[in-house]
């Protein structure tokens, strides 16, 4: 792979590009899936591809190939130059990133993860199914999954960047269906870790089973204002298409963000901090350098409720002539985009989850959101159904709720955060506990 990438640099420079960059990715994954209490399919996938960027007469060009031989690489370089010509001189972009010293991220690759035997995965899945089924007779159908992945990314450019890094990932999940009185419900739990040894099949299976049984016999609630507690999965799915989308500097610069002009102004309650730390040990989004080879950083996004930084890649940073925050992210098949690394939510008013619930007079607690991807990414408006919801009254969880919806705006929600649970976990990029929002209208 590296030889072909260096070949791309040579060819590109020979054809007149002032700078060339090759980004390669090579991933191998293995996955077992069970459905209706039995193992159904084992999947193994291998994928590798190279994306090539050039700066040609001041214009940026890009193309990719998933066929890795000299001929295909040469074709892709020529295509990238053609695209650069078509695009013309870029008004803002001067150079791909320079070579800089890299601090190694810790806990991103574990040999144990990459070498997990198939037999272990099979046995763990069977055990998870058994634990879930044994928990309660009303559980009728259990689905489960176990995935292992190893990915290597390679970056090389004309300015001397020549990097590669290997990442491991593992995850397990259980989905359970329960039936009673001709009614059905479902619950689930999952865990993702860089280090496979941290996966806790017992805990995941039991949590899935418990949640499922608790959700039986849901009741209707009246439409009214109340506290809304969103568990980590719900928080992550809400922030992704709203806050995070609007934090991307490309969206800010192109006026597709509700955070335009809000830098250094208050956008949340004083107690809230959000830190983006790409070097978090064992973080699911940790990496030593971003997808353009720029060293990882730890930065404040929100400090004491004040917006401190947007998320940049080399393009958006050069456009504004400011320091690159190193948030370039890409697949080999596309130009670099922007995404957060480990997006960590902190709050001065942090409590054990039970203590948090005990302070709620009237409210709901939801595990997930249904339809969060339909949020308006530019204005932050959203209208979603709550998933796996329970009604809270006088500090106690009373009963599962049949249907509930909330409609609001991401900025409005940020201003209503009053507490954070200590039940912290990482869902994708977002690292958070349960977030409590005061005075939200819940439709029932």
């Amino acid at each position, binding site marked *: 792979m590296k030889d072909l990438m260096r070949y791309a640099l040579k060819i590109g420079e020979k054809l007149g590009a002032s700078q060339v960059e090759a980004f390669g990715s090579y991933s191998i994954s293995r996955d077992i899936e069970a459905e209706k209490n039995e193992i159904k*399919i084992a999947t193994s996938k*291998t994928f590798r591809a190279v994306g090539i960027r050039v700066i040609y007469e001041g214009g940026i060009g890009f193309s990719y190939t998933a066929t890795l031989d000299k001929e295909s690489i040469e074709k892709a370089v020529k295509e990238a130059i053609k695209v650069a010509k078509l695009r013309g001189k870029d008004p803002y972009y001067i150079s791909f990133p320079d070579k800089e010293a890299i601090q190694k991220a810790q806990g991103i690759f574990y040999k144990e993860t990459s070498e997990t035997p198939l037999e272990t995965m099979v046995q763990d899945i069977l055990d998870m199914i058994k634990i879930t089924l044994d928990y309660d007779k009303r559980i009728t159908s259990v689905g489960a999954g176990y995935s292992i992945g190893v990915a290597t990314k390679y970056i090389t450019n004309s300015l001397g960047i020549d990097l590669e890094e290997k990442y491991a990932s593992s995850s397990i999940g259980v989905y359970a269906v329960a039936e009673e009185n001709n009614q059905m419900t479902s619950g689930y739990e999952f865990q993702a870790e860089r280090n496979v040894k941290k996966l806790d099949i017992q805990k995941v299976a039991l949590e899935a089973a418990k949640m499922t049984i608790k959700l039986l016999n849901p009741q209707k609630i009246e439409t009214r204002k109340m506290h809304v507690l969103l568990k980590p999965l719900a928080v992550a799915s809400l922030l992704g298409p709203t806050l995070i989308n609007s934090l991307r500097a490309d969206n800010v610069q*192109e006026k597709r963000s509700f955070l335009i002009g809000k830098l250094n102004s208050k956008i949340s309650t004083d107690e809230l901090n959000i830190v983006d730390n790409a070097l978090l040990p064992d973080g699911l989004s940790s990496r030593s350098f971003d997808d353009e080879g720029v060293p990882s950083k730890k930065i404040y996004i929100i400090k004491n409720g004040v917006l401190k930084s947007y998320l940049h890649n080399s393009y958006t940073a050069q456009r504004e002539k400011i320091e690159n925050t190193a948030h370039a992210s890409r697949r080999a098949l596309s130009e670099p985009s922007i995404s957060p690394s480990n997006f960590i939510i902190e709050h001065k008013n942090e409590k054990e989850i039970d203590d948090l619930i005990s302070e709620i007079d009237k409210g709901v607690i939801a595990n997930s959101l*249904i339809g969060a991807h339909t949020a308006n990414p530019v204005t932050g408006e959203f209208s979603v159904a709550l998933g796996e919801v329970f009604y809270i009254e006088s500090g106690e969880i009373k009963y599962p709720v049949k249907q509930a919806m909330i409609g609001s705006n991401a900025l409005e929600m940020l201003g209503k955060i009053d507490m954070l649970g200590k039940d912290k976990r990482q869902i994708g990029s977002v690292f958070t506990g349960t977030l409590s929002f005061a005075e939200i209208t819940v439709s029932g």
Partner: protein
Amino acid sequence: MIRVEDVLIKIVENAIKFGAEYADARYEKIFSTTIMYSNDRIERISTGINEGIGIRVLANGAFSFLSTNVIDVNSILQQIKDSVKSAISFGEKRKDKIKLAATKTVKDKVIIKPKYPPEEYPLENKVSFLKDLVSISREKDKRIVNATSLITDISKYKVLITSEGTEIIYKQPRVYFGLDVVAFEAGRSSWFGIRKASPTGYEYIKNFDTEVLSNEVVQKALKMLKAKPAPAGRFTVVVDNALTGVFIHEAFGHACEGDAIAAGESILKGRLGEKIGSELVTVYDDSTLHEGWGSLKYDDEGVPTQKRVLVEKGYLKGYITNRESAYKLNLSPNGGGRAQSYNHPPIVRMSNTYIVPGDYSKEELFEDIKYGVYLLGSRGGQVDISKGTFQFNAKEAYLIENGEITTPLLDVSLSGYTLEILSNVDAVSKDFDMWPGFCGKSGQSVPAGTGGPHIRIKNAIVGGRR
């Protein structure tokens, strides 16, 4: 030069030799371009070719699937050997062996030849179409602070070989484009966009007048600057054609998918023949619609597709099946096994899902509504098929007051309960239209068409904040 078909035949023959009862191999070569044009420049562009092979084996009643884009036949044959071996070992653990419902063997070549194939249409022309949409939109009104247009095209060549003798060669182009604008005035912004798509070539974009399209999008965005928060609670709603499609796809279509039924995960399991909605509601999932966005002649298991009746006059009539779920449910496979690409195994999917038009005029739907909500267009939705809870989102919404369409509303979604909602549909209009979308399931995204008439739904939950 070795033919791809011969390589795939060798692969499936070896899989059988290694002990598989069944094997299929799919080769795909995907040419694709994506361009995003924002305000005054090409913001993103990507062109290239992706090819690879996906191989599925069934051995001892269990599946194994492998995909790779490293096309080295000897290495693949070695991997197949391991793949069959692992399926055999899982099979040992299964009480209930997976079997495939019978299907006839097919040998066919389906080459869709567009006038302007995506791989031949000049990049310059693609860009100038996008540039037109953007510059016309920006010139319309000073309040338009961003216009972004995008286009994705694909030309997919695929070959399917099964150990039962099926050989299908399929070539399918697709063109998908959109325009989004952001309007800004007095500290408030709004965002509105449209998506258009066709399973053809670039002749498709010649059907559109960029002036008319841009104007429509700009006017809607400007109107939305005046939008007010939606009411919260239960209301009578009227839903337009596009949203009716997404409604039926989310509220009902997913729960009719054979894999979920067979696994006991869908709230509609065991309810075939039951009355589950008003007699005004008839629902089809039709893979055979002419130039339908989700249409296909054969699915990715080589099964000929068809027009499936899911609901007829309020009665649940059918499920969407692949070969595996059809066997378990003792039904015929009806061509619902689709894969996003070579690196995914086929799973049960919808194609073009719609509600059949009724007798009302569109205007009649609004007449008796004292206070309700009119919802148009869709950015998608989601469903929990075991609980029967679904959500779907409108791009545009208005209050209905005394039969009149009045105040524009900020982003609104509806939610409901699958087993109740179709009984609440109390009027279905005569008009009809279909819309293109992408449907995500188990990490796979496939083109899915949705549509129908205008419908009126009583007692729907509106996610607002007043």
